[in-house]
């Protein structure tokens, strides 16, 4: 007796079904594959606001679905999706005044912790200024190079590097032993 495995459908095939015929089943398959990672990424960039992250994930899928026809498949679908989520998150941060110009942000410190207040790494990342937090997430968690981050954020590589340095410094302050 031999069982024949069912070959998983590629992202491209599913995306074409969605783009060509609005296939809901294909969409749900794509959604299920990529949303957990997209959601976690957006949640971190937004500093841990779950409701806002859900709104951004929904908006990301709407934008992506509307523009599936223009996606050239030169990059991975997941990378493209994350890029949309990143832009939408940054727009929200900017509109709400939480995203300062990156060069200004680096000079600003983080809120000092109380003597006995210790926080975990996830919380420390959420407390970083939004701009340098984004650079830290992209570099130290998502594994992007400074040249790629610079392109995504529309800054120079030097700015990306200095923001990463700033983010790590702030993070160590937040995680360090209470004064």
């Amino acid at each position, binding site marked *: *007796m*031999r*069982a*024949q495995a*069912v070959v998983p459908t590629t992202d491209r095939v599913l995306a074409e079904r*969605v783009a060509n*015929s*609005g*296939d*809901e*089943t294909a*969409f*749900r*398959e794509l*959604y*299920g594959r990529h*949303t*957990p*990672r997209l*959601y*976690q*990424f957006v*949640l971190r960039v937004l500093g841990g606001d*779950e409701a806002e*992250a*859900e709104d951004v*994930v*929904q908006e990301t*899928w*709407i934008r992506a*679905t*509307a523009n599936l026809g223009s996606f050239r498949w030169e990059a991975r679908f997941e990378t493209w999706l994350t890029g949309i989520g990143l832009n939408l998150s940054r727009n929200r941060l900017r509109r709400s005044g939480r995203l300062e110009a990156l060069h200004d942000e680096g000079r600003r410190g983080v809120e000092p912790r109380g003597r006995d207040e210790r926080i975990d*790494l*996830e919380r420390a990342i959420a407390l970083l200024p939004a701009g340098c937090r984004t650079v830290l997430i992209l570099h*130290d*968690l998502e594994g992007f190079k400074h040249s790629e981050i610079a392109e995504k954020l529309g800054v120079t590589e030097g700015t990306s*590097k200095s923001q*990463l*340095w700033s983010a*790590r*410094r702030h993070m160590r302050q937040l995680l360090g032993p209470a004064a």
Partner: protein
Amino acid sequence: MMDELTAAERQALDALPRESDPGQLLEERTVRALREQGLLATARVSGTRDVSAAHVAPQSRPWWRSAAAIAAGIALFAGGMSIGQVLGSRQTAEAFQTVFEDGDVQLASQVQRTGSEYVASLVALTAANGATADSGQAVEVALTALWAAANEIVRLAPDDPLAARILQGFQARAQVMNRYEASNQLLVEF
């Protein structure tokens, strides 16, 4: 001055989760938004992944599928899905009250329609429970109406536990259907 990460810092960052499940409700909300914008086709039977797959199933369903649908209906009843409990849910009641206080006629009308859909669904399900296997389609229609009504409740009161439980019931039902579909896809050679 790149100030590299220490091994311990690198390890801590690597240990952070890269994925997190936002929950089923966001999927339903997103699908609904896409339908409203015309980016997804409106399925005859909409809802969870597997419920939507039901519309491509053959017309003549095996008896056990209808039985499974009826069983799901009974499970939903047993799970506390009665009209009184729906209206008695605190969060739902608060949402209803807000709607009426705001004087939003359109929303109020939608709430009324939602209630009617619930009643119609429950009546249809009750009727189907006592019927033969041929009533599978009636069960599907009733469940579709019920699913739509539950979604309306979720839209009005996103954190309503009862509406969420109803949708979870649909998910459980869909998993039963999925196992059957999967067993049909598995080609066995002797």
